[in-house]
């Protein structure tokens, strides 16, 4: 067990290093010149340009720059913004918590609603309700998240406002609001009003995916012999489904939720942008058209690390849920 975790953590570091390297070299083969960005209005001044290039080590050979960057990242320094010279670490600290809060609630929503819907669909398979679920999950996965976000804003923010609804029936559509939380994630006061629409928007795509995969695995599990055994014991239908079916059906669902976090990160960039949520996603989105590469690179590395951690967690959870998986024996190839 311990050796397995040690090996997985090493593997994780290797992957993050690989990702960093790939992104670094992609960015630094860019045609643009970062000094222009750094200098702003002074970009015509060759002396200033030289000073700046010197300060950021932009005159060094690319491999030296890469080595320096790697060294700084290892010591926990992600560099500073080309645009406004703020430290990337500070930006990360400012935005990370907002993103994690949003992501937490989206995950709660995704897991509860997604799994519940999938079970309902599987138990009532081929019923009207099941067809409705099938069609709506397909629809949700086809609707662009930002369009869904705008649709929510129009329905719950703009329209109630235009029609003179009382204020408690209107939801705000912009920003994080009072930013008041209890125990890190529980919204207090009016905070939930700011949270709910972006959280549902962020969860939408994954909820549909989870619902669909839960339905499929539940239907597969339903055919398993041990379900018949459970019924032959005299268990109630509910105990059969929850105690014997769901436990088995959840195994692939957990893996899927972890893999899907890659998608969630993409969705988060769009959701945070549409709702002006001050998280990592909207910050990256803002940095991209500005070509503020140190921000993009630094935040991307943080996000990749989070993604890798989530995958590690899922592997451990998988081994916990499925006793047939022996950690260590199968570790490397999975």
């Amino acid at each position: 067990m311990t050796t397995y975790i040690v090996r997985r953590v090493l593997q994780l570091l290797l992957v993050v290093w690989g990702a960093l390297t790939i992104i670094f070299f992609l960015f630094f083969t860019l045609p643009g010149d970062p000094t222009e960005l750094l200098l702003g209005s002074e970009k015509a001044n060759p002396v200033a340009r030289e000073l700046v290039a010197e300060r950021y080590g932009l005159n060094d050979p690319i491999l030296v720059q890469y080595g320096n960057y790697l060294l700084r990242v290892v010591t926990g320094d992600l560099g500073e913004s080309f645009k406004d010279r703020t430290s990337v670490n500070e930006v990360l600290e400012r935005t990370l918590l907002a993103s994690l809060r949003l992501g937490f609630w989206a995950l709660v929503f995704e897991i509860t609603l997604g799994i519940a819907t999938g079970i309902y669909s599987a138990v009532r398979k081929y019923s009207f309700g099941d067809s409705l679920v099938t069609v709506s999950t397909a629809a949700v996965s086809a609707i662009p998240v930002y369009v869904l976000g705008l649709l929510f804003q129009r329905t719950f923010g703009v329209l109630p406002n235009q029609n003179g609804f009382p204020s408690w029936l209107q939801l705000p559509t912009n920003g994080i609001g009072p930013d008041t939380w209890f125990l890190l994630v529980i919204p207090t006061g009016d905070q939930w009003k700011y949270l709910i629409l972006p959280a549902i928007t962020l969860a939408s795509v994954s909820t549909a995916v989870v619902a669909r995969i839960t339905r499929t695995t539940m239907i597969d599990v339903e055919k398993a012999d041990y379900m018949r055994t459970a019924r032959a014991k005299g268990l109630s239908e509910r105990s059969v489904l929850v105690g014997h079916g769901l436990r088995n059906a959840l195994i692939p669902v957990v893996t899927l939720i972890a893999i899907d976090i890659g998608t969630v990160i993409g969705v988060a960039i769009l959701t945070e942008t549409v709702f002006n949520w001050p998280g990592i996603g909207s910050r990256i989105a803002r940095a991209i058209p500005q070509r503020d590469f140190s921000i993009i690179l630094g935040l991307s590395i943080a996000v990749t690390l989070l993604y890798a951690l989530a995958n590690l967690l899922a592997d451990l959870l998988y081994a916990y849920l499925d006793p047939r998986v022996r950690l260590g024996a199968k570790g490397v190839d999975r």
Partner: protein
Amino acid sequence: MSLPLLPATSDAALTLPDVPGFWSDAWRQYRRNRLAVTGLVFIVLLIILAIFAPVITIYDYEAINTDDRNLSPLSGDHWFGTDNVGHDVFSQIVYGIRVSLLVGFMVALFSTILGTLLGAVSGYFGGTLDSVLMRLVDMFLAIPYIILTVAFIGVLGRGLNAVIIALILTGWFVTARVVRAIFLQLKEQEFVQAARALGYSRSRIMFRHILPNALQPIIVYATLSVAGAILAEAALSFLAIGVLPPTPSWGLLVAENKGLLATLPHLVFFPGGAIFLTVLAFVFVGDGLRDALDPRLRG
């Protein structure tokens, strides 16, 4: 899964399934899926609209009709209304089909070809090449998709071509993995050994003998990646890092008009709805193909 058992003495077990039968079978199966047929009809309609866009539209999508600004849908000749500078929304949407379909088909086609080639070579030859390629794929898959795409866009610059190339470069991993797995599994089987014994060339064995067995997942994944590429291009354009402004991209239209959500919501929801319907059509077609081409689901 239960396969009908052939009587042991029958020669039928030794003959290969004939190819025309396979496709007509698949088509029969496909036609039973109403959503898939609807999706296909919708896509054909889109292609026709895209080809005849200049004939169908009255206004140029770039033309600014200063007298006809902020029009609601169904206002005279402006069937979908106009935006706040006087662009005809119907023209923008119809020309937008060209962009979306071009991106979708190009990306699906080339990322599938790239993925299939790399996967086939990796799986068939194995060895160092295989290890290097697969570790590379692992690395790429460890980076969240959007960040990788953004990195490629960063290198290639903005614009339609850059978007297409970036999406091709980030789109081949899954196909490569699937094709590799199938090649790994099949290359040891007897029909491949037999082909080798007959002295067939490697490329003939790879592409005439093994590849047809991998067609089902390749075709299904390619169809779904049309949908994925259309969504991705729209999202990149929405984030202002996709195609450049005069190009009528639906995602760009949503981004440009999202400030008018309160007054002119159709400016957001018409292009948004166009993305939605187009993507949905490809998803339905993909699902239909999956069932139609799956040998286990045929009666």
